[in-house]
């Protein structure tokens, strides 16, 4: 009798009870995060027509570009094929893949944050005990992601309508479609893993695989017709062909994939207990060998160091491999060459391109160093630092464990990127390794700034992300917009010599290192003197 009573499935309306409240709650918690992600993505897309107009002013130049893309398979691997020479089509070509990736990352972050994160922290249990249906949390998370995607899609449609409303509609829907596909993918993965960090990592891995499939397909064909391209949601976005005789039926792929994945996620969610997962945690050793704060820090960070190392090495190989092709393409366009030269120096296009790519990776390494330094912040605010510091571990020793990994790790990943460049480009490693090492001076300044914030004003430590983001934006967009020197100089990376190819200038590098040392020292002094937060 009782068993039968339990087997009765509650009505759908009961399963969704509380969804509205949870959704409003989720949107309130994300009131900063979602708008920032959406705004950055939309800005990137909407600034592109102007940038392109500056680069390829005449129809002849644009036609020339399209013709060249047909023969340049390495650049096609990076950004995909071009289907038409209108400004709208070129915009969709130039930013489509990246806008899609960014939308996918937004979607997966939002969904994991409101599903697995909530369960892992135990907050879900409290919520679930209220008037909340079994499917309400997942539904609210998917709806929150849908809100973000819809906002992004609307901004793109509205902002690009000037280039033609039909193409804008297709492009906006396509970007939102990619975001939705990865939001629902994250919903599945969140059912499988017990940790939110792993769920985010696995979904990001799927996203990376989707990028690689599309890149492989696009390098093989110049019209997106490869099977590999069709296997990737990022490939669907280009095959939707915004501004080039739109193929509306491709939108059905997004819809079908999203619906199927959401169905799987709901089915999985219905078959498991709150807080449990389909990939249970394996037991660990009954006794451990960790014996110092440094060993603990390495244990906590080694996974992420490994991930960044692999990523930087592969990026080096890929960028190195496409250097010649890209330099050829850019060489034919005066404006594009000027941008590359502003980023990478004027000593020959190959070197300038390599230098620009090395600089790009240096900027990304700033994200690594901030993430790694802020582990200190995470340990402190989670209450895990307190019992460690109640042992015979001084604050400096505790911090040093993480900081060695942050600062040493940035050297390591830049060196690995250099090795990758040397391998991919097939020439001697010395200069390119040197170029990569020089970037470390800029990376360390950002890392030291994060140490300073954490040491002196721990409440503001997260602002280090803002600094890294601003530096990334200046380095990325600054040269294309021909930003004034004063703006470029705000970023430590703006002062670095353009290597390889350029002249090594020890002056600025040493000054930056000195700045890093001073910031680091001030931060550590602050950490020693202040109250630990809990």
């Amino acid at each position, binding site marked *: 009798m009782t068993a039968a009573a339990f087997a009765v499935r509650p009505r759908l309306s009961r399963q969704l009870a509380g969804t509205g409240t949870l959704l409003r709650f989720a949107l309130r918690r994300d009131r900063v995060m979602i708008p920032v992600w959406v705004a950055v993505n939309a800005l990137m897309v909407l600034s592109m027509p102007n940038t392109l107009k500056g680069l390829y002013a005449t129809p002849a130049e644009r036609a020339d570009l399209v013709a060249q893309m047909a023969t340049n398979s390495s650049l096609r691997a990076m950004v995909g094929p071009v289907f038409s020479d209108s400004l709208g089509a070129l915009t969709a070509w130039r930013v489509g893949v990246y806008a899609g990736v960014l939308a996918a990352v937004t979607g997966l972050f939002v969904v994991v944050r409101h599903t697995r994160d909530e369960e*892992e922290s135990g907050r879900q249990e409290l919520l679930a005990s209220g008037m909340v249906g079994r499917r309400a949390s997942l539904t609210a998370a998917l709806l929150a992601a849908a809100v973000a995607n819809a906002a992004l899609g609307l901004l793109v449609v509205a902002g690009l309508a000037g280039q033609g409303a039909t193409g804008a509609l297709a492009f906006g829907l396509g970007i939102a479609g990619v975001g939705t596909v990865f939001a629902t993918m994250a919903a599945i993965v969140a059912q499988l893993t*017990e*940790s939110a*960090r792993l769920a985010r990592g696995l979904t990001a891995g799927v996203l990376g695989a989707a990028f690689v499939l599309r890149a492989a397909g696009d390098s093989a064909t110049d019209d997106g017709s490869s099977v590999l391209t069709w296997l990737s949601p990022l490939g669907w976005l280009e095959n939707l062909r915004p501004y080039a005789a739109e193929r509306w039926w491709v939108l059905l792929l997004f819809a079908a994939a999203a619906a199927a994945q959401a169905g799987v996620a709901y089915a999985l969610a219905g078959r498991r207990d709150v807080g449990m997962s389909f990939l249970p*945690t*394996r*037991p*660990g*050793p*009954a*006794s*451990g*060998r*960790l*014996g*110092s*704060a440094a060993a*603990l820090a390495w*244990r*906590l960070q080694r996974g992420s160091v490994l991930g960044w190392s692999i990523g930087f090495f592969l990026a080096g190989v890929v960028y190195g491999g496409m250097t010649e092709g890209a330099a050829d393409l850019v060489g034919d366009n005066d404006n594009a060459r000027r941008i590359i030269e502003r980023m990478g120096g004027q000593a020959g296009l190959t070197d300038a391109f390599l230098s620009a790519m090395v600089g790009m990776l240096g900027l990304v390494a700033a994200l690594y160093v901030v993430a790694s330094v802020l582990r200190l912040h995470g340990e402190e605010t*989670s*209450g*895990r630092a*307190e*019992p*460690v*510091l*109640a*042992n*015979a*571990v*001084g604050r400096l020793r505790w911090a040093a464990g993480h900081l060695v990994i942050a600062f040493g790790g940035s050297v390591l990943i830049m060196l690995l990127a250099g090795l990758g460049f040397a391998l991919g480009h097939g020439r001697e490693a010395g200069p390119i390794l040197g170029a990569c090492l020089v970037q470390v001076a800029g990376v360390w300044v950002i890392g030291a700034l994060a140490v300073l914030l954490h040491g002196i004003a721990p409440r503001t430590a997260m602002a280090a992300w803002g600094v890294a983001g601003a530096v990334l934006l200046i380095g990325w967009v600054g040269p294309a917009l021909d930003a004034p020197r004063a703006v470029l100089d705000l970023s430590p990376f703006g002062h670095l010599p353009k290597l390889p190819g350029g002249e090594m200038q020890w002056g600025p590098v040493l000054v930056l290192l000195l700045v890093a040392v001073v910031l680091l020292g001030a931060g550590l002094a602050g950490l020693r*003197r*202040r*109250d*630990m937060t*809990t």
Partner: protein
Amino acid sequence: MTKAITVSGLHKSFGRTHALDGLDLDVETGEVHGFLGPNGAGKSTTIRVLLGLLRADSGAAQILGRDPWTDAVETHRRIAYVPGDVTLWRNLSGGEVIDLYGRLRGGLDTRRRAELIERFELDPTKKGRTYSKGNRQKVALVAAFASDVDLLILDEPTSGLDPLMEEVFQRCVEEERNRGRTILLSSHILSEVEELCDRVSIIRKGRTVESGSLADLRHLTRTSVTAELAGTPDGLARLPGVHDLDVQGRRVRLQVDTDQLDAVLRSLTESGVRSLTSTPPTLEELFLRHYQEDAVAADVVAEGAAR
């Protein structure tokens, strides 16, 4: 006897909140000292100052004869700390954490570690995120009791433990005391404190309001007496220190300040005692007296505001 912890006139504010407002605390070496107070009274803040995690605004504090802020690392070698809410690393097993904490202190007694794991029925192979609250607490307790230290600082250590484990915990504390270790036990479980502690300090709003042995403190409070008499009682109401007197025929119930108990008993025997129950004050009553003064004061303020 030397002092393991001395604190006098400790002040600590966070912005406008005065967490500690002239707190005093003395813990003798080798004793189990109960540290009591309502939520938010400043117990954890005091402990964090003693651990050098917070810097006091003013006042003096010494722990194991050293300054808790400047000599933090040296003193911590001889201290084991158990917080009230233990957070573990999600990818580290309980056993790894126990060994890590042991090595970061003065070292770990492996035999005792194995014995404690057995007694607390802890599975040391589980990963941090899979432990329940009580089990996370056990991880920290095993690490503390198995460490080779002189002073244990336990901040509400038994929250989340079941009664059986609570019992194991109390035996462990007694064993530690028998070995001559000093224990500062902050707790809300008054029976636990009554059972274990040699002396207690009660704090309220960042100040110490009572401090001493339980016998000392009991002396300051009331004993309740219920008696069945042979005749009608006489003159009880006039005796000093008698409260809540309730006479129903020959039945008498009253509360009396413990230092006035003698006079009341004499008066009762004059009327002839048929039966007598006398209950010594519990720590709970002691505690509630201080606690309720707060509540009464708050009521008065609220009423004043309402008018």
